[in-house]
């Protein structure tokens, strides 16, 4: 079944049907999430109202890691099975991951200034997230450097898998080193340490942002398939014109 769904033409059909529903669901959840985050959630006893930045900063951080992991899984699909949709998925995921990593860095800096007294410190968590952003930029740049799509896909896949070593470093940096950034407070073995009045808005925003990112990923994958068809047709037309000129 998965092989059939991953056929590019079949993918265009089912993703086209799913997109309007995903857009509606995303908009609905975003509206609920923003209402809860900006109006319902109480101020934190230490952070005050600034806690509201967490409701967008944390989902952005999760998605930054999620999309790099998606790219790494797609890279394996490209290198091992050479599935065309794996490369399409990787290429579509990179700008989304880069955007959410940038959003994570910017919102983190804007939270840091009033809470830590500085926009930036070179601690392990912040630095490893900056490295993650630079990895995304490197992957995007490499794609533009190599013209042949299959060669570009292999080179980018190798770079992506090498860069994946940074993902566990980002996740566990707060445990392995003494950082100014606080340790994990949601995904912990002993359960979340956040009060439910703040955890619920955070989880709603996380699901809403994930739906938004998945919707964008599907949309960009559709665009990437079209781009490859345009490239194929352009080459076919050039060959036809060459033959006509030679005749």
């Amino acid at each position, binding site marked *: 079944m998965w092989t059939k769904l991953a*056929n*590019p*033409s*079949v993918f265009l059909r089912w993703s086209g049907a799913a997109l309007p529903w995903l857009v509606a669901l995303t908009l609905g959840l975003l509206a609920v999430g923003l209402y809860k985050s*900006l109006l319902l959630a109480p*101020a934190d006893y230490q952070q*005050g*109202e*600034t806690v*509201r*930045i967490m409701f*967008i*900063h944390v989902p*952005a951080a999760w998605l930054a890691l999620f999309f790099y992991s998606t790219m790494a899984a797609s890279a394996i699909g490209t290198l091992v099975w050479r599935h*065309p*949709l794996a*490369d*399409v998925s990787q290429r579509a995921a990179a*700008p*989304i991951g880069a*955007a959410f990593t*940038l*959003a994570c860095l*910017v*919102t983190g800096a*804007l*939270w840091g*200034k*009033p809470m830590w007294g500085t926009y930036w410190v070179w601690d392990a968590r912040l630095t490893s997230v900056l490295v993650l952003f630079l990895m995304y930029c490197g992957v995007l740049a490499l794609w533009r450097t190599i013209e042949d799509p299959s060669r570009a896909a292999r080179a980018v896949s190798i770079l992506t898998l090498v860069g994946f070593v940074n993902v566990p470093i980002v996740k566990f940096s707060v445990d392995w080193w003494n950082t100014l950034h606080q340790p994990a407070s949601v995904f912990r073995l002993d359960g979340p340490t956040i009060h439910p009045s703040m955890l619920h808005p955070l989880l709603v925003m996380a699901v809403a942002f994930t739906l*938004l990112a998945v919707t*964008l990923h599907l*949309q*960009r994958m*559709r*665009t*990437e*398939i*079209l*781009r*490859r*068809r*345009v490239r*194929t*047709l*352009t080459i*076919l*037309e050039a060959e*036809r014109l060459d033959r006509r000129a030679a005749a």
Partner: protein
Amino acid sequence: MLGPHGAFILASYAAMALIVGGLIVASILDHRAQLRALADLEGRGVRRRGGDEA
């Protein structure tokens, strides 16, 4: 309403809206450009030889 650090909160939400909004607009424009290019090529009678390869 947002306390003494309201500017930081508003700037955070504005930055997120700008980054995600930019990504959405760029995605839509890119998709439309590819659709136009494909329609243009097909309009000139260029067809694939067959197959569903991406």
